[in-house]
């Protein structure tokens, strides 16, 4: 007997067909896995925007009191063996006079008496992110007048106009008075100096104006009724969106979804990141990736050009090459710790001592911020760019370089005019991989600048407009944070899924842009080679 060989059992043709089917099976599994991930994220993410009907529910509390409320039932029926024996239960969020701004509750199925559609009930979303489920009755206007519900839109416009007036006064008058006062403080002007007194008077005057307008605003209210008959007043100024989910047709629902998506993309998070939008996180993510790309591309390309074109072919160079490849395998948290220890504390701390010593001990640069985060990510993605660029440089035909030299070009001119353009698709491949890697990292970012909630964007109207020293919000961190919120609070869980979907879209869009750019470069420089 010789060695075991498949030829003893299978014909060549059988062998081939088995190999092909096994390979196809594996490839198919891959596609299925990818589709599952995308479907789950998409479905759960879009769930955040889909309007849920408001229902009228009668149920009994464990102490025996009966309640009749408007509520939104979460789709997930929890079969909570742990919390209530083996019985199914409902999880819903309701509003009543005791908890007007909503309360989540888990009620066993036998305690629920009646569930019915409540078409007249509205889902009222407030500016602070909370929701009220109640039935709008009428509008209360200034001087005790009352208005028809039909005039809702009209009255809202009036309210919005007053709100804008207040904001204008705040921004244009009060803010400038504040700034001048702060500068007086800085120069240590006497407490009773005339300039100071004049500013105080100004401040008082504009403050009064704001108070007058706010009092005026408070007179506009929406009168609503809970399911048990008690009335509840909501200031119109507080209301963000009002909808009747029970009365909506498909188009109406899609409109709500559209408005929800827009709000999600443009609003700031509310209620400790369980409601509202993710604009600061989206902005922070994209900004961080852009700054990182700007930092890593020239650095990585220069390093690769040196390694490939200039470095002598000796042991040191090959050691450097091995180090670069190994850098790609270092766990990302290590880079986070490095960024914190080196960039933030050492570099940032020294910059503070040298340039911002008057602000110490409060750190200016010696604190986590978007610039340090971008720099850390640049270090993390550097090996990817170097390796891909070198690959691109390797593909430049020797003949072209000789051709350039033969026309009198120096080495630098040859690299600049001939080698780099031809290696540019390779460079773009590196940038694509770097973007994909950087967009997905969370752990190192949390050490060097990404926070759960940042009061300010890293970009505003104040000089120098782009504040790279500020901390920033990041979609990945938001998702990480969202995963720790209450599992029963389905809405905040789906906020996490929606953020996840958005992160996927961001990475996808950035990648597509880079791929399109690479294709154009390929077409321009590599056609015919």
């Amino acid at each position, binding site marked *: 007997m010789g060695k075991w060989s498949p030829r003893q059992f299978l014909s060549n043709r059988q062998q081939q067909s088995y190999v092909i089917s096994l390979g196809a099976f594996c490839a198919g599994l891959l596609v299925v896995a990818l589709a599952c991930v995308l479907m789950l994220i998409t479905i759960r993410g879009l769930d955040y925007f889909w309007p849920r009907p408001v229902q009228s529910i009668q149920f009994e509390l464990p102490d025996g009191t009966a309640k009749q409320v408007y509520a939104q039932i979460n789709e997930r029926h929890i079969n909570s063996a742990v919390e209530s024996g083996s019985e199914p239960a409902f999880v819903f969020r309701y509003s009543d006079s005791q908890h007007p701004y909503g309360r989540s509750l888990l009620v066993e199925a036998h305690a629920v008496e009646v569930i019915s559609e409540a078409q007249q009930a509205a889902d009222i979303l407030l500016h602070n992110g909370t929701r009220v489920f109640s039935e709008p009755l009428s509008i209360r206007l200034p001087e005790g007048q009352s208005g028809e519900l039909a005039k809702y839109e009209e009255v809202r416009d009036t309210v919005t106009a007053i709100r804008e007036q207040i904001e204008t006064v705040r921004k244009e008058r009060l803010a400038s008075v504040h700034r001048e006062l702060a500068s007086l403080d800085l120069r240590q002007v006497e407490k009773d100096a005339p300039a100071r007194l004049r500013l105080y008077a100004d401040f008082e005057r504009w403050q009064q104006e704001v108070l007058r307008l706010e009092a005026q605003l408070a007179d506009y209210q929406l009168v609503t009724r809970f399911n048990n008959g008690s009335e509840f007043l909501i200031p119109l100024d507080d209301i963000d969106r009002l909808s009747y989910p029970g009365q909506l047709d498909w188009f109406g629902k899609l409109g709500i979804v559209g408005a929800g998506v827009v709000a999600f993309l443009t609003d700031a998070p509310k209620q400790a990141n369980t409601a509202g939008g993710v604009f600061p996180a989206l902005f922070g993510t994209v900004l961080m990736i852009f700054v990182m790309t700007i930092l890593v591309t020239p650095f990585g390309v220069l390093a690769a050009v040196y390694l490939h074109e200039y470095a002598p072919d000796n042991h040191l160079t090959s050691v450097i090459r091995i180090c670069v490849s190994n850098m790609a395998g270092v766990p990302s948290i290590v880079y986070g710790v490095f960024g914190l220890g080196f960039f933030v504390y050492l570099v940032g701390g020294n910059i503070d001592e040298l340039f911002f010593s008057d602000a110490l001990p409060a750190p200016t640069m010696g604190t986590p911020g978007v610039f340090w985060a971008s720099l850390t990510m640049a270090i993390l993605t550097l090996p990817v760019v170097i390796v891909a660029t070198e690959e691109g440089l390797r593909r430049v035909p020797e003949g072209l370089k*000789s051709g350039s030299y033969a026309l009198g070009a120096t080495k630098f001119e040859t690299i600049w005019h001939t080698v780099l353009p031809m290696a540019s698709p390779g460079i773009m491949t590196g940038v694509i991989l770097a973007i994909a890697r950087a967009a997905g990292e969370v752990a190192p970012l949390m050490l060097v600048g990404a926070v759960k909630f940042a009061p300010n964007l890293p970009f505003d109207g104040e000089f120098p407009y782009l504040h790279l020293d500020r901390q920033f919000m990041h979609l990945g961190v938001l998702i990480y944070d969202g995963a720790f919120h209450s599992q029963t609070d389905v809405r905040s869980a789906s906020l996490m899924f929606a953020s996840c979907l958005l992160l996927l879209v961001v990475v996808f869009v950035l990648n597509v842009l880079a791929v399109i750019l690479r294709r154009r470069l390929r077409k321009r420089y590599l056609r015919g080679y």
Partner: protein
Amino acid sequence: MLKLFEREQLNLAKLPEAQTAIEVRDLCLRFGDKHVLHNITMRIPKNRITALIGQSGCGKSTLISCFNRMNDLIDNSVTEGEIIIDGRNINRKKENLSILRSQVGMVFQRPNPFPMSIYDNVCYGLRLQGIKQRRQLDDAVERALIEAALWDEVKDRLFESATTLSGGQQQRLVIARALALKPSILLLDEPTSALDPLTTLIIEELMAELKKRCTIVIVTHNMQQASRVSDYTAFLHQGELVEYSDSDTLFTLPEKKQTEDYITGRYG
């Protein structure tokens, strides 16, 4: 008899300086420990076509690369001896290679147009010299392409990518690229070995035309080509110059046995 009038014979050994384009004196070249060229001494006449023939690895490409110092690009190359072009030894240390290489153009075996438009390809060397005026560039491109016998074929598509041209057109474009710098010497390193016979013929006709403007040195494996186009031929064997004379003599009445063996195909 007629042929003698056509090709006025020069005495290569005692070529006067005014008629010498390149004078090589005791040129030795080695890569590390490997000696490639031994004591080559020769004078290449102006406005003539000189062919270098010999087996693969005999050093003819290395010799031609000495004339514009392309061997400098190879890490461990050491060149000794003198090469005098335009009255100066180009092997000296402070020779400006950019200027030298614009005076001594070179065309390689495989056409190597840059991945840019035809126009930009021809301008490449001029732009490196800092010429930016559009008029000047336009004129130079047109002149170079006419000289390279390519103008009529590409004048309507100057701004298309050069890589869309055919192999023969690409090779002529590469010649035009070198001609744009108005070189006094043109080095052709097996310029037709990657081309079909018809295209080869076009390039050969072009060479005959070009020798009015500049000196041409061509490396070739093709004996017929050498006898067809060149005025003078040098035969190299294992890094040594075996025989160097006018082509008619070399191909009909070679002095050395080695030369005869090679041109009659007994080896190589």
